């Protein structure tokens, strides 16, 4: 996420917003955005409802066996259509901003 922050201008220059979603509370998200200087929204999905809707729930992987999100990245175009999905097979390996930027540049233009 820090790598996305450092490349954020490459997303904004393409007219693309970046948003991150986890089960973290608003308070934790505020602390982390202050600590790491995140200027894009960190969205709090405390009961994992949206995470479930996207089927990116990792059951019991959180503290005390709670449900959290697995790492996953999507690029959604202006029409709300998914144009790129990255579902890692290793928790430690996440999408780099270059991959997302490549997917944005490769996405078909909206009519």
């Amino acid at each position, binding site marked *: 996420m820090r790598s996305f922050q450092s490349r954020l201008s490459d997303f904004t220059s393409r007219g693309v917003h970046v948003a991150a979603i986890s089960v973290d509370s608003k308070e934790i998200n505020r602390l982390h955005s202050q600590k790491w200087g995140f200027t894009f929204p960190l969205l709090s999905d405390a009961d994992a409802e949206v995470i479930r809707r996207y089927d990116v729930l990792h059951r019991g992987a959180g503290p005390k066996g709670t449900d959290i999100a697995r790492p996953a990245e999507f690029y959604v175009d202006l029409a709300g259509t998914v144009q790129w999905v990255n579902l890692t097979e290793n928790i430690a390996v996440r999408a780099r901003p270059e991959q997302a930027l490549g997917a944005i540049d490769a*996405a078909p233009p909206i009519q």
Partner: protein
Amino acid sequence: MKRKWNWPLWVGFVVAVGGLFSYEFFAQFPLTRDFPWANLSLFGIGATLLIFGLFRALGRPQLYRGKVFGTIFIVIAVALFALFSYEILYVLKQVPLSAQAPRVGEKAPSFSLPDQNGKEVALADLLSPNGAVLIFYRGHW
């Protein structure tokens, strides 16, 4: 005669322990997180020193200390390496399939969630002018 301090055993042990406990540190950088090169290198250096030290202790016990604690160090280091390998090769790969996750060409499910400032942000707010990258992450709890 006083036997010599067998430094490779101590240094090797510290380096091997560091190989495990530096994981959090190296996980900050994509290059050493995607594959734990740095940690495996530390384990490798630690193992080399430990083996060298133990050979000295066993081969010339009248000159070098460490026959007993060197063996203990190596057993602990092997256990730490086994734990590390289990985490890297098994635990990190226990990711759900997400077979129902939206695919390319499908509509992204809508949502509205509060951001770090308490402001509600809907997917629809993020899509103009050229879409949005959504990053789902495990969180810091």
